[in-house]
């Protein structure tokens, strides 16, 4: 999305970078929230329907806040809903790990454990952003992620320590997801530019801590740490999995069928 005209505070290049930054964080949250919401009514038991809906709601709420901020910075004057519902897959910036289909309950909880283990320290750092809006959203989100991580971590331990079947499922979920994690630590050029002024957070610098934390959970669960020899990324450049187009087609269907109306 280079070359976008952006207005807003200060330097025009900075506003464009800030727009992209807020947009990508919004995309991560919305796409993951959309996936989690698919569990509502399909969870293994009722309490878990409610808990997964809670996490989904936190994600979508977070997306809404990031998009509202992005909308204020948008050179094209779009509002939050237009950003969410009228961009195509190539314009979406979310991490690939967020868009993968929900799979079984083990897959969903393994993904959540990996993302939450990243999100909590990331958001705590982002809460100290020099941009007060970003900092405020991150501070609120960090509180939610603390609870998300507590939950997903407990589920990893439960499934690993439950039955042979649950143990096999959670292990294969981690194996299937591992290569999507390095993307969480990739810096876009905009993020790197915003780092100097203390707006963004150095993701790359968080990788070692994340790996240590993940390996500690896996060790506690007596699961094997997957081999880190493969990496799939591209979401930040709008290069998504084949699943992404279907997710958007479903999510955007009403807005696309009747554009420009109030709902």
């Amino acid at each position: 999305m280079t070359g976008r005209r952006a207005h807003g505070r200060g330097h025009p290049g900075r506003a464009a970078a800030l727009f992209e930054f807020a947009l990508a964080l919004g995309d991560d949250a919305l796409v993951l929230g959309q996936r989690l919401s698919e569990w509502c009514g399909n969870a293994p038991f009722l309490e878990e329907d409610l808990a997964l809906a809670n996490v989904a709601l936190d994600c979508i709420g977070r997306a809404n806040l990031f998009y509202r901020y992005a909308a204020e910075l948008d050179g094209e004057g779009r509002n939050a809903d237009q950003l969410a519902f009228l961009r195509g897959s190539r314009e979406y910036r979310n991490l690939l790990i967020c868009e993968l289909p929900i799979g079984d309950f083990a897959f969903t909880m393994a993904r959540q454990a990996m993302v939450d283990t990243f999100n909590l320290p990331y958001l705590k750092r982002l809460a100290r952003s020099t941009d007060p809006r970003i900092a405020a959203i991150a501070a609120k989100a960090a509180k939610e992620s603390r609870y998300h991580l507590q939950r997903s971590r407990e589920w990893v331990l439960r499934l690993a320590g439950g039955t042979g079947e649950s143990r096999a499922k959670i292990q294969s979920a981690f194996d299937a997801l591992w290569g999507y994690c390095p993307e969480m630590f990739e810096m876009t050029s905009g993020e790197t530019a915003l780092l100097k002024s203390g707006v963004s957070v150095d993701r790359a610098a968080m990788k070692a801590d994340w790996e240590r934390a993940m390996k500690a959970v896996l060790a506690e669960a007596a699961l094997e740490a997957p081999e880190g020899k493969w990496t799939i990324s591209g979401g930040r450049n709008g290069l998504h999995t084949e699943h992404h187009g279907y997710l958007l087609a479903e999510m955007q269907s009403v807005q696309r069928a009747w554009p420009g109306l109030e709902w």
Partner: protein
Amino acid sequence: MTEYRLSGAELEAAFQTRVDDERRIEPKDWMPDAYRKNLVRQISQHAHSEIIGMQPEGNWITRAPTLKRKMILLAKVQDEGGHGLYLYSAAETLGASREDMIEALHQGRAKYASIFNYPTLTWADIGMIGWLVDGAAIVNQISLQRTSYGPYSRAMIRICKEESFHQRQGFEILMALAAGSEAQKAMAQDALNRWWWPTLMMFGPHDSESAHSAQSMQWKIKRKSNDELRQDFVDQTVPQADFLGLKIPDPELRWNEDRGHYDFGEIDWDEFWTVVSGNGLCNRERLARHRKAHQDGKWVREAMRAYEEKRRARAA
């Protein structure tokens, strides 16, 4: 169990006096077996309705047209699940287990509200469920806040508060459509045409045909008859439809000055019994979906139990 020194007839008379005096029956109180059975039937049916009701509304969570609507709908469906939980808990105070109640649902021995066997075809249907279906549920449930069984009464008080909020949200969806484009207005009218009669059916058969009504009224499990509740609902809803500029699909609907109520046409009872007996548009799908989620989640529930047992064994 407590040992009672009174005879069955004396106990039953004392029980009825307590009910007549508007004192609540609590889980440890003596109650006739039929009262207990009737309540388990009604409360579990109510719980199942909340749970199955998550499906038609959940059908639009991933497609809600704005972020705000998506959040409201997700929170709403979550509330319905929460209502299911309180109600299962209320039924558990009578000795029923959740697992048994779910099994009864899956085997078709326990019913749920037939309204949820109708499909949600457009976004306007989400507005209609909030406005009409939750509206009808509230009319029914307001009277149940004074139901004789304490835990049920308390659950209904809590549920009613949330349902009123849901009804306003549904109405607000329809206000947006009514103020929108011709296509949106047509979408709202089409949804009303499809949901009006099924909503009136929610109050059940005419009083003269209702199997459980007389006994339930005497025990104050039920406080108002099906036909009275249906009339209350029609009376409160017609002006709201006028406000929205929508036309209720009943040529016989008109204000009756003498009665001080709206007159309305006869329900298609063939359709009612078709859906109740399992042959509505979505009966099979709703149950199949619930069975599948339950079946797919079996390994998770087993894992959870196994983990807890191991933990307890380690702690011992």
